[in-house]
């Protein structure tokens, strides 16, 4: 096995890692702003990585460096072992790209655009079939600028897939899609993975990241703040659980807080939605329901759960709005 590779022949490139995408110490600034500030990530072959982060966290910059559209200020980026800029010509046929918004002539018909991208590949998927699968057959002759946002997104996804790539980059693939279309995209991403394609996608949607990815990388201010499988991220403290319920907004939480054990906290994150954080045991549950009785309210949707990815995300990136 050791002799299996022809070591010593031809140009020896640095030992290529087996990762489909490898980003090491990536730094990229725009003027005074460091959009990406020392970022590391790896996408293993035939796996799905979700890049999660608030607006301006550096997701699109990271993806565009991987696609070869932006030159890194520092750090090393390899896609399929290739440099996205220096080896662009060799890499592009093997890579599928769905940019964030746009990606077609304003006046071009959906089928024309997909056809144009298809001829750039040696063995493209059938254009008619792909339009059909993505629900675009009915608008195949409609100019791009008259398509709905969701239809434009689906066309962009079709363009990313038509060349049968080995690795795909999807920048917010489900933005602006209705729930049916979103399910379809999820289905496609799962099929890509099953067929051996490596996928890196960005999203704001926690459930999307949780449902689709082998690995989630949460970034903020251009840095990785957490990474791991969805299960690892949400169960980092197994004893920490949550009790949630809904009731009339604005209840007085003070008596509850004093009645609860010290390691439990009570809050109303959104009007009418209550959250008890901590070691939730039957005693805590009894305390909460007793307090509800005291307040004369009925606790609706009462449930105990582990942390959601959204909780992890908000915990790590803060709750204030980003411009």
């Amino acid at each position, binding site marked *: 096995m050791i002799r299996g590779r022809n070591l010593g022949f031809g140009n020896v490139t640095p030992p290529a890692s087996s990762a489909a995408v490898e980003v090491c110490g990536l730094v990229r600034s725009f003027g005074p702003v460091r959009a990406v500030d020392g970022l590391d990530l790896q996408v293993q072959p035939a796996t799905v990585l979700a890049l999660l982060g608030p607006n301006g966290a550096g997701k699109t910059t990271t993806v565009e460096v991987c696609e070869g*559209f932006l030159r890194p200020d520092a750090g090393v980026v390899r896609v399929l072992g290739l440099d996205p800029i220096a080896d662009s010509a060799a890499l592009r046929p093997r890579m599928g790209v769905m940019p964030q918004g*746009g*990606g077609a002539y304003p006046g071009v018909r959906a089928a024309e655009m997909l056809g*144009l991208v298809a001829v750039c590949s040696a*063995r493209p998927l059938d254009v008619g079939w792909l339009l059909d699968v993505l629900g675009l057959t009915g608008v195949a002759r409609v100019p791009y600028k008259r398509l709905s946002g969701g239809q434009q997104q689906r066309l962009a996804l079709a363009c990313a897939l038509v060349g049968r790539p*080995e690795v795909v980059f999807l920048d917010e693939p489900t933005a602006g899609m209705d729930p049916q279309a979103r399910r379809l995209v999820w289905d496609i991403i799962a*099929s890509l993975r099953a067929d051996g394609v490596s996928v890196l996608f960005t999203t704001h949607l926690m459930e999307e990241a949780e449902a689709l990815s082998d690995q989630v990388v949460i970034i903020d201010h251009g840095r990785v703040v957490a990474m791991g499988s969805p299960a690892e991220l949400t169960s980092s403290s197994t004893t920490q659980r949550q009790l949630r319920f809904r009731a009339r907004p604005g209840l007085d939480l003070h008596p509850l807080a004093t009645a609860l054990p010290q390691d439990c906290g009570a809050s109303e994150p959104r009007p009418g939605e209550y959250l008890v954080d901590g070691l939730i045991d039957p005693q805590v549950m009894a305390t909460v329901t007793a307090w509800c009785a005291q307040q004369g309210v009925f606790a609706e949707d009462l449930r105990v759960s582990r942390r959601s990815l959204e909780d992890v995300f908000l915990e790590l990136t803060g709750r204030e709005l980003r411009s």
Partner: protein
Amino acid sequence: MTLFSPGTFAPAPGRGRLSRMLLTQARTEFVLTLRNGEQVLLTLLIPLGLLVGLTVLNVVPVPNPRVDNVTPRILALAVMSTAFTGQAIALGFDRRYGVLKRLAATSLPRWSLVAGRMLAVLGVVLVQLVVLGAVAFALGWHVSPPGLAPAALLVLAGTAAFGALGVLLGGALRAEVVLAVANMVWLLLVVAGGIVLSVHALPGALSAIAAALPSGALAEGLRVALVTGVTPWATLGVLLAWAAGAAILAARTLRLS
């Protein structure tokens, strides 16, 4: 459970055939130009109106036979409208819509992003030559046969000059700015660049300036070639100089988005 049978998306990457990619890109952009009402107005209807108007109405001084002197200027206008104004505006908005990035992410080599556009522009210029030529012949246009080959060279050089200027403008600025500047420059060149009035009819210094502009050079070069049958080498040189200068600049300033 999934909609797709296993292997549907199994990777099978590969580069498409270059000639096919380039021709498909050019054909797409060619068709888009002819489908766009504003582009048709700019590239066909306005030149047609001016061709007929300047030939039939005696509003500006034109040596006789009027149609022989008007037609070369209208052909120059047609090339300028397509290769410069129309192309710059289309490029500005295509960049805004992420088209260049989209294409740059395929197997198309980078140079073909521009080469494909130039092919499309040449296609539109050909359509213009046929339509405008046919109308000019109907108006009694007479061509000096030895001038046809140099005229074709001049059209190619003019398309290259205006095309490079169009990429320079449309490839660097915001779409709205491109729109405004491209239209303003077009109007200026039509009025004072040797199109409506020939370079000889312009007053004083303006005459010399217009002759050195691509519009004046192309119009005057075509007139010399088609009326006298002589090859205007100096004019050809002016156009090629514009083409080279603008192309070198544009290669540095072209941005994908």
